[in-house]
């Protein structure tokens, strides 16, 4: 099925940026965890192999075929979420892991991808322009079901990417700016109300974010230590493996949510700027793929992926810099975590797929 004429359209820039980001991630992962033995590094390397293989498979078959699997994939993910909810044991407060021998898997990550395909399919099938109230509700429902299931697992972080996804789809589907503004206003007014819906530990995080010094040894610790790690990096950093904030475990979760702090500490402003540029390039290539897509489906898939990756990157870095409360969101491609890496690589595979099969002109 792979037509030869498509080969030159393969987006090498996106591919190389992706590999660069994962490479940087592996390097920092090794640095953050080598004092505890390198087991996590090798495990992540194995996951990278799995992810790249899946990516290759995804690229080879037209995305329309993958999109046709959207419904079964979506239902399958939701069932897995229910299954996990019922059976899985709690890991760090969240019941979100599917245990597959040595490799645990988080269905929430795959659910994001399935939701992207579902939303794209739905918009594609609606032949008209603009969205009726009913279709808005349907879109919200498609997004809402996995969100509810994941929230029930006590995994707030994983749900945070769904809202931007829904938002991006609604914006692109031609909703009137005025209606959008009303929705935005209502959303902003809802924020204080949601605070009271949060669990006590989540409220605590918000409070310590507002005033990290209120409890520097307790909940404010991560925020404070992350800023110290980042700030102490200076221009060129303390050198690879030379950062002690992460290595001496002043910074908890340094290999997952706070991997960029380790990078900023060891490679300094230079390294942090490189990482930001890499993500900027990745996002702009995804947007370019969406612009050049040959149909609605391709455009929405690409922008859906952009919404998920973009929002996670922005939220994660915001936390690193102490601009947002700790959420438990990982940095796509760099943080340790197999399911996140594999699903992100599959998502980027879809984007490469869209780009390869774009309009000729």
């Amino acid at each position: 099925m792979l037509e030869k004429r498509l080969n030159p359209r393969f987006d090498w820039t996106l591919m190389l940026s992706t590999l660069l980001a994962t490479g940087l991630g592996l390097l920092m992962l090794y640095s953050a965890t080598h004092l505890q033995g390198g087991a996590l590094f090798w495990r992540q390397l194995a996951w990278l192999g799995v992810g790249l293989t899946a990516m290759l498979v995804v690229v080879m078959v037209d995305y329309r075929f993958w999109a046709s699997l959207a419904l079964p994939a979506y239902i399958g993910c939701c069932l897995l979420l229910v299954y996990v909810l019922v059976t899985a044991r709690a890991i760090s407060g969240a019941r979100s892991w599917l245990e597959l021998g040595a490799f645990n898997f988080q269905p929430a990550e795959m659910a994001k991808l399935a939701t992207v395909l579902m939303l794209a399919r739905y918009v594609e099938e609606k032949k008209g322009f603009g969205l009726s109230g009913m279709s808005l509700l349907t879109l919200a429902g498609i997004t809402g079901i996995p969100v509810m299931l994941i929230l029930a697992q006590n995994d707030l972080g994983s749900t945070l990417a769904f809202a931007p996804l829904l938002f991006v789809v609604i914006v692109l589907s031609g909703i009137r700016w005025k209606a959008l503004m009303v929705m935005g206003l209502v959303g902003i007014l809802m924020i204080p109300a949601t605070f009271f819906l949060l669990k006590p530990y989540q409220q605590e995080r918000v409070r310590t974010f507002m005033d990290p010094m209120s409890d520097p040894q307790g909940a404010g610790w991560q925020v404070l230590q992350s800023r110290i790690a980042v700030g102490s990096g200076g221009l060129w950093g303390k050198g690879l493996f030379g950062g002690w904030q992460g290595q001496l475990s002043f910074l908890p979760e340094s290999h997952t949510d706070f991997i960029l702090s380790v990078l900023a500490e060891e490679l300094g402003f230079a390294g942090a700027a490189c990482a930001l540029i890499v993500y900027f390039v990745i996002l702009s290539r995804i947007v370019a793929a969406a612009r050049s897509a040959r149909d609605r489906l391709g455009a929405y898939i690409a922008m859906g992926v952009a919404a998920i990756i973009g929002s996670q990157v922005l939220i994660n870095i915001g936390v690193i810099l102490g601009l947002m409360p700790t959420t438990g969101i990982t940095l796509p491609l760099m943080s340790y975590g197999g399911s996140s890496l594999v699903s992100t690589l599959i998502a980027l595979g879809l984007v490469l797929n869209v780009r390869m099969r774009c309009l000729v002109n």
Partner: protein
Amino acid sequence: MKTDFRHRIEYKEYMETTQFSARITVLAAFWAVILCSYLFMFYYLQIVRGAHFAELAEANRIRRVSVPAPRGPILDRNGLVIARNRPAFEVLLTREKVRDVESMLRNLAPVIGVPEAELKERIARSTTPAYEPVVIGSDVSLAAASFIESRRADLPGIAIRMSVKRFYPEATLGSHFLGHVGEITRRMLEQQKEGELRQGDIVGRSGLEKTYGADLQGRRGERQVVVNSGGRVMEELAGGVPPVPGAAVQLTIDLNLQRELEAAFENRVGAAVFIDPRTGAILAMTSRPGFDPNFFARRFNRMVWKGLVDDPLDPMQNRAVQSAYSPGSTFKPVMAAAALEEGIVTESTVFNCAGAGSFHGRVFRCHERGGHGPIRMKEAIKKSCNIYFYNVGSRLGIDSIARYARHMGLGQTTGIDIEPESPGLIPSPEWKLSLNGERWYPSETISVSIGQGPLSITPLQMAMVQGFIATNGLRVKPHLRAGAEALTGDQSYEVISRRSLQVIREAEWAVVNDHGTGWRAAIEGKDVCGKTGTAQVYAGSADLEDDEIPEAMRDHAWFVGFAPRDDARIAFAIIVEHGGHGGEAAAPIAQRVLDKFFGTKKKEPQEEVPEGQVAHAREAPESAF
């Protein structure tokens, strides 16, 4: 393809209608703006405020750990160890790392061997932040320490630390002059000048541990270490300062003599001081009952403390220097010296003892109901005749008595190197006037003449008086630390002549060696001299036999003296509370200690301890801690 073409038209129309491209641009611009602001934020944190955060990171990582200096040992005059240090295990709890402190304490209480309630109180008392460990068990057994250490994984936030505790291998021996150590008090912290000591430091709280605390303390050192967030030491850095161990303090005490003295006391209550009259060096000193200073070296044990404070026998009181007793007949040598010197009597002056006499309108009795008949001074001291000394006292007057008593060191502190010290009391008309506004009655002088009345003297003062008599009036400062010899004031040859003191020495010799009341202290060939005394506790005791009086109301028994008569090397004072007659209760103690002193002692006690000997003692293996 036709359908494809139509599809493309339709797609193009859709894109235009929905302003797809424009909306993508808006969204992309939104992301780009945030990414740019993040880049600026990184710049601000890392470049603008980089130095500040680098400092914070350094402070995070490098911790200064204070290393306490080992306390110097306390040695006897021959270098034997009386106080040293020993290793101990502490149990630490870091509140921040313990999820459920209450249940943790419940589990640990039986292991540490302290009630759960007291552990809770220790936690509650600590004012340090939650990430600082709190000592919950300060001296646990090796078994308990290894039990906890082996279950480290199950006991997060609990750690075992090695520490050093003060150790007194002889337990209660010499506890009063040794004193005890304990955590520094807030007041001591505020009063110190150099700022060398910190909260939680172990310092001398009483006795010699306090007096020579500055020498024993040493100087704390410091380690610089890299720690992780859990406070665990990951790496040792160069640039620390090693602690300077405290210096050894060598005493004038002879440990073997001290042991003999305490053994001789058995379980009786009282005090005793044995002193080298030529230097003021204290050879042995005890106060009974004693306490075990090891209790204080461990962290506070409420029960033990309460027991010591509530004990009616007051074991914390150093009776040898803090308790002043009525001297009874042991005051008679002082009276004799004053009378001879004032020329009121001579050796051969005779008074008639008829068993009682009238002085200043009151009748005073002698303990010998039938009277001693005509009696001279030596006989009067030997037989402890009251009538003789009533006559002497009535002629001397209270002012003269007080003057001579003061000259011999009574009514004032001796300046011994442990605190506090009682000055005792030598009464005078001025004293009585200021006390209750009443004038002094001459009949009161008669009571004072035989050591009764408001007169009070500490055992240490009494030993000093005997030393004064034994050395022809040498006034020295009593001391416990070797090399602290000092004369106090002028030599007194002019005030009390050799001749007068010679008469008293001969009389005291007779007390022990010529059928006197102190015969139980006699040692063949050593010419022990002494004087018995009975301090009335209950005014009616003179008319009753000892076993007719309840023990708490029986008289205190004194025996004081020195040996040998010519060229004395040791002077002493012993009091046995409620012991009855001095000759029976106290003299045998003196005999036993003097026997040890003369009999088993191989060499002459040294006047001054050479420097080398102290240095040698410091290197001794027993003082390694």
